[in-house]
């Protein structure tokens, strides 16, 4: 989930004594339910007054060796300069955003909408599953809020109340130690293992304006798979946190070291090009909008050299 992942920020590890914290992982196959949640958003088009985007969420769980899924959406939104404040206030995020103008801001609102849907699904799942492993995408961190309300905190609390453990996987991590990415630290390890990153190892500056609600680990679930940063609910004891990773290993498949349940949740929520065309068709039919191709100024000006970003 793009929006949440962005919240990880650039976190640095202060010293390099982490190597002593690498522990091997033994799978615990105890039939714990594994539930994964993911959400996606996409810009469907631009209008004269703003952008049209769509969001979709997906929940995948493994039930008696059989994956089940629930897809929620797609939900299209028209975000304009006029309605952006209203949209954010409905999401309860009106204070947490600097009101810039322009398209970048509208895209940020799209990201917030996606986060809101994802958090809503996560809240529902954390309250409806018990004794399970709940897998999220991104890091367990959030911006400080003046309102004192933090949805992620509420999700973690609710999950704990139902004896669940929340594990959050980051596909990419910028956390570094001695100039190396933390995920590179255990790539040479044989067999599933886990590297614990202590709180003290994270620089205070890197946590600026961010609340870390999880305990950071680097986990390699598969000998030949990738290593990922995994945040485990920080309010749980260390033994429970490590055991949760082992329970995940024992109760879910892994693909390239990534949990299959979470991989499927991502696949189900992602928008493909034909999804976008279908949504455009829906909008055109329901609201009478006419879809026209916007001229690509870069291509028009520079021809084959018109590649690159969309910035000014």
């Amino acid at each position, binding site marked *: 989930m793009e929006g949440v992942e962005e919240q990880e920020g650039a976190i640095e590890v202060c010293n390099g004594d982490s190597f002593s914290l690498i522990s091997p992982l033994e799978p615990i196959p105890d039939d714990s339910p594994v539930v994964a949640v993911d959400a996606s958003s996409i810009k469907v088009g631009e209008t004269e007054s703003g952008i049209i985007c769509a969001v979709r969420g997906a929940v995948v769980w493994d039930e008696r060796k059989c994956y089940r899924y629930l897809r929620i959406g797609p939900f*299209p939104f028209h975000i304009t300069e006029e309605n952006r404040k209203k949209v954010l206030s409905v999401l309860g995020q009106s204070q947490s955003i600097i009101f810039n103008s322009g398209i970048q801001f509208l895209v940020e609102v799209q990201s917030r909408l996606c986060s809101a849907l994802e958090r809503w699904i996560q809240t529902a799942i954390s309250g409806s599953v018990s004794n399970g492993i709940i897998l999220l995408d991104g890091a367990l961190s959030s911006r400080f809020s003046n309102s004192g309300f933090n949805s992620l905190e509420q999700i973690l609390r609710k999950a704990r109340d139902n004896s669940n453990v929340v594990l959050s996987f980051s596909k990419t991590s910028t956390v570094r130690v001695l100039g190396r990415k933390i995920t590179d630290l255990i790539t040479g390890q044989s067999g599933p293992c886990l590297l614990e990153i202590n709180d003290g190892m994270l620089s205070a500056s890197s946590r600026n304006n961010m609340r870390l609600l999880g305990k950071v680990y680097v986990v390699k679930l598969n000998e030949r798979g990738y290593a990922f940063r995994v945040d485990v609910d920080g309010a749980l004891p260390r033994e429970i946190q490590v055991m949760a990773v082992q329970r995940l290993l024992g109760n879910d498949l892994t693909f390239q070291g990534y949990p299959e349940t979470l991989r499927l949740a991502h696949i*189900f929520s992602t928008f*493909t090009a*034909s999804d976008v065309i*279908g949504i455009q068709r829906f909008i055109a039919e329901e609201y009478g909008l006419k879809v026209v191709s916007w001229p690509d100024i870069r291509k028009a000006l520079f021809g084959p050299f018109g590649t690159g970003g969309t910035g000014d």
Partner: protein
Amino acid sequence: MRLYKKTGNTVHIISFPDEDVEKGCYLAIEDKRANKSMLVQVIDIQFANVPGIMEELLREPLVNDPMGEDIDPLDITSHILYVQDARLLICKIHGTIKDGKLMSDRSWLPSRTHSAIHRLPIEKLMEIAGVAESYPITLGETIEMSPLTIDATSLDGKLNIITGRKGAGKSHLSKLLVLGLVKYGATVIILDLNGEYKKLGLNSGGERNEFYERVHILVPGENFKVTLAQTGLPVMMKMLVHALNLPGTSAREFRHIWLFLEERGMLSLREIGEAIRRWQCNQPVKDALYSRYYTLLHSSFFTDNPQEAIDFETLLQSVEWENGGALVVDLSSLSSVDRLIVVEYILAKIQELLYQWKIRAVFLFAEEAHLYLRETYWDDIVTRMRHFGIFTTFITNQPNTIKENIYRQADNIFLFNFVNEHDLEVISRAAKVDAETTISIVRDLPPHYCLVLGDAVRNFPVVVKVRPLNVKTMGETRFFFARDRKIETAAPSCQQ
């Protein structure tokens, strides 16, 4: 439907799942600003190249899992699926319709944004194209379930080909055309290789039908025998030279023998044998004459008894006078040499009668003609004989047995299904339509469906399901295990 692109005489159209379009149907691209419509035929239907379709297909098996559920209150998924099922219609341009009239103009380009595309019913197209129905022969139903009727005059003076793989329904269509022509008083001669046409005068229940009196079955060696006098020297010489490959010197000696006996009023098979025995000529010539003599003798086609013989000339004339009929020459029990003799006789006789204006015209239906038609006859049939009044329909399941020049000059071609690439390549040479149309449509034709090309449909290729015929079937393949199997699907001719 939306116009996507045009390349040469090919137009690509995007079509959506709720639009009823089939391969072979016609579409009118109506440009309201230009006040005219481009007429195109769908020759292939492909999936539209929808972006992201690969990802969707990879995800699809998981989505279709009954263990999954979608909460989609706006029902956007139906729109997504609609887009994914979009089709690309590959169409060939066939002309322009302006003010309800058909024109051959294909040079203009309809507007992408202002054109409306709709299906043009084949029935309507045939009406616009002016397919006359003075002598209607209903071939069957189009893909739109409307009847397809051709005019018998479109077969008059024409060269036709019926081809398709075994069991596709060629003979069935051939019978339908034969009876259609007979109905309007035409004289039809059928060179029946497999004895399939013998029961044309009986309906599927075995009772006599309306054509019973007008269908004449000729079985060479049985009820079809001729005397030498009826045959005449020119026809006999053709048989000896072309069918029996008699060398020139020997042919000259035979001519002398014939004239010698004719002068003396002694022309008979027995006397020819005697004359060869006594004739003063060298032994190789004598041997050559003897071998041909015995071939003629053993064919049982010739007789010295005038009571036993049939006067082919009179028979043909009487058929013509009695308002038409079909002469079915049953070649099924003849050896290949005897077949050549009989066919040579029939064709030579017909030519002779037509040349002398003793008969008006003959429609000749030749099944697997390569098995009995000599090489030089093919070109003769296409060029010279046509002008005399022999209008041939070739029926074959081996399209490569018909020369390319025959295909090029054919006026009507009835194509049944072929899947073999080599066969498709051969039939694609038909000049009446582009190769792409032919191959694409013919490849997917189900049994009993036929692509009609040529004058009969005013050069608008039309797919037709050949209608059942209430005629007793004789063309069914014999099976060893037939007694043990229950054949549930009957041939169309016995469905009624």
